[in-house]
């Protein structure tokens, strides 16, 4: 697909801390999780640029993409792009439309909706309010029976190649692992992004195996046996699963599924085993794991999201309906000394290859129906 590289993408490979993903993180952290304070201006005024964020069922402090999205909106506000930012947390899927509407009625100029589940409500709202710009995070739309008028001039889906991020960290894991056993603990594979992370992880490892004539066993366990609402918020399960992998000799654990994954990363670190984070650079979200955090498979939302908001403000909103955020991997931070120069070089090559399309992950968009 048409990729729009962002700073995060091009600079992430640079070792140490040049990556905005990295440097920006500590800066945004304190502000990021703050709710708006002060009183709302009258967003209906043409000159007042208000941005609203409707979360998926869940909370803006979920240490996962609901939070990253809100961080992006906040970032835009702190950078002065936005006059007023506000969020509404969805408590039940039946409220999606209502929550979007609440912002629309209040005259917000840009409405960000988070998560694949809001695809249809967002599309509907975009048609209903042609003058409001809509950004759908993780909402990869195409023209089809249900969305005949796609692409809409006021609707953009912010999407990622999670399989590429997964591919990168998988490759790294294969190159670093001593036991050539690596594990991945994920939320339910019913969520496409999760599936792409997981399978990309395996693909990346296989790619390097082929290259170096190694054979790395990549075990992936998805948390499918609980409710949709629980699968990303069951750290205890994540920890237990990671433990079980470590017991069987895995020496790198990829925690890929919101808080469930965090459990795995924490557990690995507690057992002094290398861990790989997900979505954001978890060096900043899981401090207790820092000494053993090898890297994180990144789909940095704040940067691209802010870019989109800027474009919306300057009426240069993309019209092709999709906007690809860069995939990447986070700096090694405290574990940099474990990554030999040649491995790092290979990683940068891989990122480049994936970005320009010369390397394909071969991972399908979603888990094929059983």
């Amino acid at each position, binding site marked *: 697909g048409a990729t729009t590289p962002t700073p995060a993408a091009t600079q992430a490979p640079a070792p140490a801390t040049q990556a905005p993903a990295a440097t920006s993180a500590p800066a945004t952290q304190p502000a990021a999780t703050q*709710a*708006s304070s002060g009183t709302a201006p009258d967003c209906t005024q043409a000159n007042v640029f208000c941005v609203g964020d409707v979360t998926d*069922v869940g*909370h803006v402090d979920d240490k996962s993409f609901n939070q990253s999205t809100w961080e992006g909106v906040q970032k835009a506000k702190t950078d002065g792009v936005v006059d007023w930012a*506000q969020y*509404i*947390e969805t*408590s*039940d*899927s*039946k*409220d999606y439309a*209502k*929550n979007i*509407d*609440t*912002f629309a009625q*209040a005259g917000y100029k840009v409405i960000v909706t988070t998560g*694949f*589940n809001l695809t249809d409500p967002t599309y509907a709202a975009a048609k209903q309010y042609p003058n409001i710009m809509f950004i759908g995070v993780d909402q*990869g*739309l*195409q023209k*089809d*029976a*249900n969305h005949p008028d796609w692409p809409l001039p006021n609707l953009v889906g912010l999407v990622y190649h999670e399989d590429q991020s997964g591919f990168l960290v998988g490759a790294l894991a294969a190159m670093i692992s001593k036991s050539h056993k690596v594990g991945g603990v994920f939320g*339910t594979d*019913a*969520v*496409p992004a999760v599936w792409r992370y997981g399978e990309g992880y395996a693909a990346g490892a296989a790619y390097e195996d082929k290259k170096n004539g190694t054979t790395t066993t990549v075990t992936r366990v998805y948390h*499918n*046996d*609980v*409710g*949709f*609402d629980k699968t990303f918020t069951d750290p205890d399960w994540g920890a237990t699963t990671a433990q079980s992998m470590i017991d069987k000799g895995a020496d790198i654990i990829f925690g890929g599924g919101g808080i469930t994954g965090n459990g795995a990363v924490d557990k690995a670190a507690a057992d002094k085993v290398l861990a790989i984070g997900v979505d954001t650079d978890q060096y900043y979200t899981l401090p207790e794991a820092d000494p053993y955090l090898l890297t994180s498979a990144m789909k940095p939302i704040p940067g691209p999201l802010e870019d989109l908001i800027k474009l919306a403000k300057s009426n240069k909103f993309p019209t092709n309906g999709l906007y690809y955020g860069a995939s990447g991997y986070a700096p090694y931070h405290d574990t940099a000394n474990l990554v030999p120069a040649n491995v790092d070089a290979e990683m940068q090559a891989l990122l480049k290859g994936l970005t320009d399309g010369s390397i394909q992950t071969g991972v399908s*968009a*979603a*888990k094929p*129906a*059983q």
Partner: protein
Amino acid sequence: MQSTADKGFIRRLGQLLNPLLVPFLAIVTAVILGGIIIKVVGGDPIAAYKGLVQGAFGSPSALSETAVWSTPYIFAGLAVALGFKGGLFNIGAEGQIAFGAVAAALIGYALPGWLHTSIPPYIHIPLAVGAGILAGAIWGGIPGALKAYTGGHEVINTIMMNYIALNITSYLLNGPMRDPNPLNLSARTPEIAVSARIPPIFDIPGMRVHWGFVLALLMAVVVWWLLWKTTLGFEIRTVGANPDAAKYAGINVKWIITLTMALSGALAGLAGAIEVTALNYRHELGFSTGYGFDAIAIALLGKNNPYGIILAAILFGAMRNGATRMQFLTQIPIDIISVIQALILLFVAADAIIRFIYRIRAREERVVLTRGWGG
């Protein structure tokens, strides 16, 4: 003379309102405490509650949304209450709702295909909703039968059935029943046929309140009639009040227990079926989380009285619905609603506390459900 007449009148009025008095005071107390909590954590209770009320009743569409929210609460609340009347504690509404939804969705989207023909709404809707009711009845009937014939306690069993329903639904929505549309990336069924959709009451955009709400109100009347006016109701209540006496009186206790749980499940299944056929037009993983537990609170708040349950359900629906606006205006986390609801339940359950605070005479009878675990 005159004054005594007044006294008599006031006493009669008191008797009339007494059942409502304690729940009302419980709500008031909970709301006050909730306000204090908001204040403590640095929010503005007045603004918050203003937002809450606005969001729930402030506009026609707000009212409509409140009704939409209340609908499943009424059904589920009735389900739990019916169980209570039969001496059974159905914590499984959650799973029964999910199964009702799955079944309704299946009939909703698949039946025309199976029959290779389109079906008129007046047939398709009843079939879809009926399927939901049946599914719920089965899902409730199983723990009922287990209780009746093996003594396995329904509290644990219905909870287990929730998890089982969850796994099976996940499996179905990721596999056989998954929306085949290649662009669909989430675990959900296809949309149900138009002929299976219950229409909204007003066809005004943004007014989603549908005939399911009316059906819910009717169902409350039906349940009341069933319990208090029919021999079956007499049998259910007798088994609930004293199973031994019921057996002595020639009532088939095992069957009534099974039937009661099945009916309870059917009502819960109906809740799910209506959500699918009248609102979402498909079933999706992650839908209906927590209805089952809210339903318990609603049944207790409504004192297991169908009409009380309508009021309780509307209250809860209004809170959930108004929460959005409250958060939008004040950024106070929606979770405060759960706290307030828990407090309401607390005070309703332990009405002695309320009676103590407000110095109200105690009443004699008390809800008793616990039969120990043996059965």
